[in-house]
């Protein structure tokens, strides 16, 4: 761990006042502290934001507002979240461990870094950690890596479960900087790696995530998050699916579909949503629609199973949704 300056601003305005390079915000610390110990992240200045008033889960004009410092556990347990957006609660509860969920914040969850083993090991190259040094994952051990959205520079998967469910729900993040406040759709917030994998999100220097807004969507009360992994708990997704469906009798009127464990960012699947609309709510429709999930996939040596797993995960999630009364 490198030496750093530690500050504890008392207000949001103080926290964003001096956007010096090499500044990191500390919330739950479950990613940052780990990566600092590994010297993957070496901030010169750490701003502890835990005293800032970025809390609360409440209904607003724009939808459900979740303060960025709310802990994963508290959001998952919140009555509004559980009733209106079960997929959110399920995504949170399928994440990490109880201890981590007690600590980790919602804002930090969206900004967590990839679990790519090369990124986390400073003895090997990594374009995300050390731009231009190369990507050993492309030819290396890449069973967990992305088949969607990857580039020649980076194939790392985005690890958040929560972000997958939020992308399906058209959530936005509210950002605060010296220049003011702006809202960004979560779908656009995470960036594709392209030639600059070190740039992971549309966050300007010194800008702070203050809230997550989930728009009202009545029929999201019938939604599921299905996570497929090698062990049953405390493990990242090989594939996951966040699915909500509005039914009109036995027909699917509308659907929201996003997948995790597949892409370099949380991956919304509009083609699958379109293919489901107007179809009977039945396994054959799901299987046919899931075919569209893997358009444009680029499998690597060890993750060639992922497209098939993604399609099957979608079918399973849609079937599980059917069973919810």
């Amino acid at each position, binding site marked *: *761990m*490198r030496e750093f300056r530690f500050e504890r601003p008392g207000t949001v305005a103080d926290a964003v006042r001096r956007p010096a390079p090499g500044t990191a915000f500390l919330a739950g610390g479950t990613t940052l502290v780990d990566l600092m110990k590994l*010297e993957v992240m070496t901030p010169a200045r750490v701003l502890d934001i835990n005293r800032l008033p970025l809390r609360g889960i409440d209904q607003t004009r724009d939808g459900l507002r979740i303060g960025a410092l709310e802990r994963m556990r508290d959001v998952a347990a919140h009555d509004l979240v559980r009733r209106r957006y079960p997929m959110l609660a399920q995504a949170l509860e399928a994440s990490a461990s109880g201890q981590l969920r007690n600590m980790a914040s919602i804002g930090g969850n969206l900004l967590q870094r990839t*679990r790519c*083993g090369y990124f*986390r*090991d*400073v*003895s*090997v190259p990594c374009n995300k950690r050390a731009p231009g040094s190369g990507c050993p994952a492309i030819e*290396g*051990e890449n*069973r967990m890596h992305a088949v969607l959205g990857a580039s020649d520079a980076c194939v790392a998967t985005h690890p958040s479960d929560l972000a997958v469910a939020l992308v399906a729900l058209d959530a936005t993040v509210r950002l605060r900087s010296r220049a003011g406040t702006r809202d960004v759709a979560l779908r656009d917030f995470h960036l594709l790696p392209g030639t600059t994998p070190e740039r992971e999100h549309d966050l300007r220097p010194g800008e702070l995530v203050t809230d997550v807004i989930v728009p009202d969507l009545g029929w999201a009360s019938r939604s599921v998050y299905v996570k*497929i*992994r*090698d*062990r*049953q*708990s*405390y*493990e990242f997704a*090989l*594939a996951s699916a966040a699915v909500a469906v509005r039914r009109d009798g036995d027909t699917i009127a509308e659907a929201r579909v996003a997948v995790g464990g597949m892409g370099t960012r949380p991956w919304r699947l509009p083609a699958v949503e379109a293919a489901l609309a107007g179809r009977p709510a039945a396994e054959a429709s799901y299987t046919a629609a899931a075919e569209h999930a893997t358009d444009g996939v680029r499998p690597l040596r060890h993750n060639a*199973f992922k497209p*098939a*797993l993604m399609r*099957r*995960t979608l*079918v*399973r999630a849609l*079937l599980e949704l059917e069973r919810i009364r």
Partner: protein
Amino acid sequence: MSVSPIGRETARVDGPLKVTGRAPYAADYHPDGLVHGHLVLATVGRGTLRAMDVTRAEAAPGVIAVYTPFQPVRLINTFQGFGAENYVPLQDTTVRFRGQIIGLVVAGTFEQARDAAALITADYAGTPPRTSLADAGPGRSQDIVQVLAPGVASIDDVLRAGPVTITTTVTQPAQHHVAMEPHATTATWEDDQLTVYSGAQMPQRSAPAIAAGLGIDPAKVRLICRYTGGGFGGRSPAWNEAKLCAAAARALGRPLKVVLSREQVFTTVGHRPAVRQTVRLAAQADGRLLALAHDSDAEYPAAGGWPLIPAQHTSGVLYRTPNLRLDQRLVTLDTPSTWAMRAPGEAPGSFALETALDELAARTGVDPVELRLRNYATQHPVEGRPFSSKHLDQCYRLGATRFGWDRRPARPRSRTDGDWLIGMGMSTAAYPTDREAATVRVRFHDNGRVSVASGTSDLGTGAWTVLAVAGADTLGLPVEVIVPELGDSALPPGGVGAVGSAVTANTMPAVRAAGRAAIGTLLRAAVENPRSPFHGLDPADVSYRQGRLHSGRRSMGFDELLRAIGTPALDAIGATDPAQDSPYAFHSFGAHFCEVRVHRLTAEIRVNRFTSVFDVGTVINARTARSQFIGGIIWGIGHALLEADPIEPDGRYAAATMADYLVPVNADIPDIDVHWLGYPDPHISESGARGLGELGTVASAAAVGNAVYNATGIRVHDLPITLDKLL
């Protein structure tokens, strides 16, 4: 009348200390003047160090010393053909594998040492390492074991002839012990006397090994490991990091502690070697074996390590067959040291054998339990000796009943529960046990306590409690009165190594011998000491029962006697002999039954149920025995479904963290039904107890794999069995 605690549920005597954080482990000692060391590891797979730049590290805050091959601290290489590592660190510039120790930074705090170590850069002349077992050809044979029926020239002829033939090749990558306590050493010198605190399975062997590395008299080294957070083979030798810590402490003239980071543990200490095995069977149509051949090619590091023999105690023991051949080969690779890991040969070997048996059952249509009964061995297939006490047939039958084996569909992929495919599998476990020499000291104290001391170690598996139970049983006293002592090389020599599931079975009889001897000492003092109320009596007229001495109507507690004669304590040493040239073969046995479910769409594999029945002789402590069995079975589930550390062409382990190297979590483990038969072994020792610690690990992976086949119709030969192999 006190009831013997043998076989009862005795809570761990060390439990309260551990759950309240008061049991000191190796890194919990803080001698005055302590400084901290952090290792620097090589980042190339093979080559030579040309130079290392340590200037920034030396200038970093708090740094006291930096040791490298270019500014070493002296260590002596004492490798003599067998042992873990065949080199000692920092004595040359050769890099033998990626992750080898190439430096040690010492600083005032752990964080200062760690952060300074990260500032060191190394310049290597590298050459490509050999890391792939798959790409390597057959290795060099160790002993070839062969038994041929009269008139058979080559086992290959029988294996070709059939009528039924099976060839099964299975592979598994490197596995790691991942003991909960990371390896750590605290070394402190007082003049020329060294005390080392370091987790050790054999404190009385590790201490002289460290002495030899330092070139000093073994009597000058004391190793203390009262509490050790898991061994499983990974703490049976003294690794280079412990020797280096002791040497640097000597050079610095102050106490030094070296704690490995979790990542460093993966390469600094040994792992279970990657291995490829082929089992070939020839059988009659009814499943009776005509020939069994088991070949293996196991990773063997150029830097030294454990020579894996997976067939010896599996295919070489389990079934009656007229023709048998075991060829266990080693393949030299440039990998970190390999070492014994929980049922070292038996866990991988049994997966190969018991998978092949399941394939034979499927081919012949004979039920897997029935197949094993048809090939039941009553004597050791190679040695010809009868087994000392074998009731494995009852394990099969009782296990099948408890589990509900009759509900298993013979046809794979024919039972479902909703979207889940259901399958059942079984397997046989066997583990060699023996009777080794052991020495124990029993000491009566005038405060009413009795200490029972052995130079063995407790890795967390229950030896503390076994000493207490054995002492209580021998002396007719409550368990609470017994004060066990272990984990210290300065205890009387002859402590059994905590290896090979040997501690309980071998220490028990020594406790009895020592207890009898100590009672003899007590009785002698009673009649010989003028201050004793028994003074002058004929020794035959004084007896010991349940902590009291009796003669006629006179009776007093041993503590009263000691106080009366003014002696704080009296003790005696008891020793037992090894079972040499026994007419019997000693093995423990068991049968595993497993039910899994596999999702029809996403192919996740979950274990629904597990039942195991064991035949291990007398069980000393039911509670810790059950924990051992359950832990072993969980280990087997991990072996089957999760554990893997792929090695890359440059020698880097791709999963050398606890986030990437998956072991089961609670959610992966169902209720495990464990039962044992309870027949004392009449030949092993007077206690009737055989070893059991590792038995649960043996073949439990095969039961899982066989259940996956029964559920899906897919046979996965490359471990671990992950869902992508079933899609």
